[in-house]
């Protein structure tokens, strides 16, 4: 492994300070181990053979000596102006990675605690880190080195949580700062819950949000997971999500990307139970110089699983998108049914997408399909619309909205759907397809 020493040095003094705060705490050895790991592997590079990071160069992130961010007194109005919000939801707010109790709701329906409190109270979180392989990911190792705050959510056996839990990670964009939010969710047997993760805000100077989410879905449980990423054009956002499904459980994910300088979402769903299913959908809209990398993987380890991977991108300006989706069907995963697709609408000659969906099948009795398309709308489609009197501009708008709407329409929380519709449709460029 080649590690750039300065990259590690950037974080050394902050690490020492943080550890000093929580001496002899359950979290201290976890952090130390992670820091040692990070020192060994560093941040990923695009060097040859590193398929995971082939198209995303994080050198700009590695170069900046990010300092740990601190909380700020951002008001609730600012949060509500950039994140989805409903008073009927359980809203939980973090600013620059720190829990803001004054802006957050409590609930006795389920166990919801912020990680800092658990560290403070010396209450270890069982299974925290069990889904994260820090030896394989410098960002996840770094997040774990700075394990400090985030949420721990546990939904009890058989509990149906009616309203979504809306977690907002707001970054005020203080220059050269980093936050490492951590999310841990455990949905007990037969429970059902919807969680919205938001990464929003950002300012005029470079900052980094480096999150890790772990979601354990027990037998017969259902987790609906939403992710909304809309930060400033100077923000780097790296997200690492790990999900493990038990027998008969369901995980639905809807991921929305609207902005960041470099965005990366690495989601891996392990189907570790029979008859489990996941439906992973995403919409990314990149413009300007933005770069978004979706690295979405499904690992079928047990039989009778179903998975659907459906991502759509709209690219404008000089932006670049990467879609790496791998569906792995292991030998025991017979009778797996899997579909994957990535479609891209490219609105500018300077925009580019690298879409590499891949399928590895080791079982022999499975049904799998995958595909990727990139390109413009065809002449037949436009002629059909124009032959009804609709001009090119209106036709293009309907098609672009429709393209985005295919993912947004499937959001089942009405307030969130309205929010996303507004967020995307108002920002989509006016564009005229030519042929």
């Amino acid at each position: 492994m080649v590690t750039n020493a300065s990259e590690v040095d950037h974080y050394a003094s902050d690490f020492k300070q943080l550890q000093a705060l929580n001496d002899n705490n359950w979290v201290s050895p976890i952090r130390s181990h992670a820091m040692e790991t990070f020192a060994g592997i560093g941040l990923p590079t695009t060097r040859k053979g590193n398929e995971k990071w082939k198209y995303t160069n994080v050198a700009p992130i590695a170069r900046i000596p990010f300092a740990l961010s601190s909380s700020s007194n951002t008001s609730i109005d600012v949060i509500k102006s950039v994140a989805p919000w409903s008073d009927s939801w359980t809203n939980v707010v973090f600013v620059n990675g720190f829990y803001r109790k004054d802006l957050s709701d409590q609930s006795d329906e389920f166990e919801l605690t912020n990680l800092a409190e658990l560290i403070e109270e010396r209450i270890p979180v069982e299974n925290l880190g069990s889904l994260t392989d820090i030896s394989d990911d410098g960002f996840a190792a770094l997040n774990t080195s700075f394990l400090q705050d985030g949420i721990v959510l546990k939904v009890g056996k058989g509990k149906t949580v009616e309203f979504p839990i809306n977690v907002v990670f707001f970054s005020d964009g203080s220059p050269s700062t980093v936050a490492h939010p951590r999310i841990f969710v455990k949905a007990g047997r037969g429970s059902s819950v919807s969680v919205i993760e938001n990464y929003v805000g950002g300012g005029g100077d470079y900052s980094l949000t480096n999150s890790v989410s772990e979601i354990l879905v027990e037998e017969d449980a259902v987790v609906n997971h939403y992710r909304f990423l809309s930060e400033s054009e100077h923000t780097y956002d790296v997200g690492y999500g790990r999900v493990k499904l038990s027998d008969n459980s369901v995980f639905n994910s809807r991921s929305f990307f609207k902005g960041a300088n470099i965005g990366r979402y690495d989601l891996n769903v392990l189907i570790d139970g029979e008859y489990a299913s996941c439906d992973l959908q995403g919409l990314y809209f990149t413009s300007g110089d933005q770069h978004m990398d979706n690295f979405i993987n499904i690992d079928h380890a047990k039989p009778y699983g179903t998975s659907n991977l459906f991502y759509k991108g709209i690219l404008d300006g000089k932006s670049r998108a990467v879609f790496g989706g791998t569906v792995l069907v292991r030998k025991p995963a017979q009778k797996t049914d899997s579909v994957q697709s990535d479609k891209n609408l490219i609105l500018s000659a300077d925009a580019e997408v690298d879409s590499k969906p891949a399928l590895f099948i080791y079982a022999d009795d499975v049904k799998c399909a995958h595909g990727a398309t990139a390109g413009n709308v065809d002449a037949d489609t436009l002629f059909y619309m124009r032959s009804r009197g609709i001009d090119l501009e209106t036709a293009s708008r309907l098609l672009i909205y429709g393209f985005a709407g295919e993912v947004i329409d499937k959001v089942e929380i009405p307030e969130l759907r309205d929010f996303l519709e507004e967020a995307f449709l108002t920002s989509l460029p006016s564009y005229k397809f030519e042929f």
Partner: protein
Amino acid sequence: MSKHNLIEIKNLHASVEDIEILKGINLEVGVGEVHAIMGPNGSGKSTLANVIAGRPGYSVTEGEIIYEGDNILAKEPEIRARAGIFLAFQYPVELPGVRTWQFLKAAVDAIRKENGDEEMGVRDFDKLLEEKRQLVEMDPDLVKRSVNEGFSGGEKKRNEILQLALLDPKLALLDETDSGLDIDALRIVSEGVNNFKGPQKSVLLVTHYQRILDYISPDYVHVLVDGKIVKSGGAELALELEQKGYEWIRESTGTEVQT
């Protein structure tokens, strides 16, 4: 009283990628008339309908199409549509994510705008749409779905006729609307066309088979072979063609017919 023509096609030659498909078509369709164009596969009948509607990809090398007194060949398809030309597609296009309701309203509003009217209010439009939907017996759920996506062949054709009824053009070009329809769908589609017909409306119906003409009786029948109209007559010509086959045309006109 002399006949008032809605559309006059004069010596029309059109090609696709340098291959000449239409080789001098002459045709006049009067206001209130129903014309059927019949012909074997590859004779150019679909090309004719598409060239009138302005589909890109065809180049007109000679001749003109006069619609309401103007040569429309240089006009964009949406301009022709707003002037009252409607093409029911042989293969209606799927528009993923574009809801049928939204699409239909955009079309209705585009035509209203052309006539100097305001966009139609949502409630009025819903009422109009519901009335026309019932006419073509289309499943109400389909209106909420993406245009033609996941529709059966018959549902797609009904959707074309629904659009015909909503947009209420002057000239309906039906491009093999009958192909692939079962007998029920054929009846519904034909009723839709018959509802549209009237003293102010014209129909140009392109078909391979006589079958649809049992439901929609044409005033004139033209037989198109190898890019030319080789025979014209009344409704009886279609029946004769059905009985004797396209081979008979070849013998009676001395034209090569590939069937």
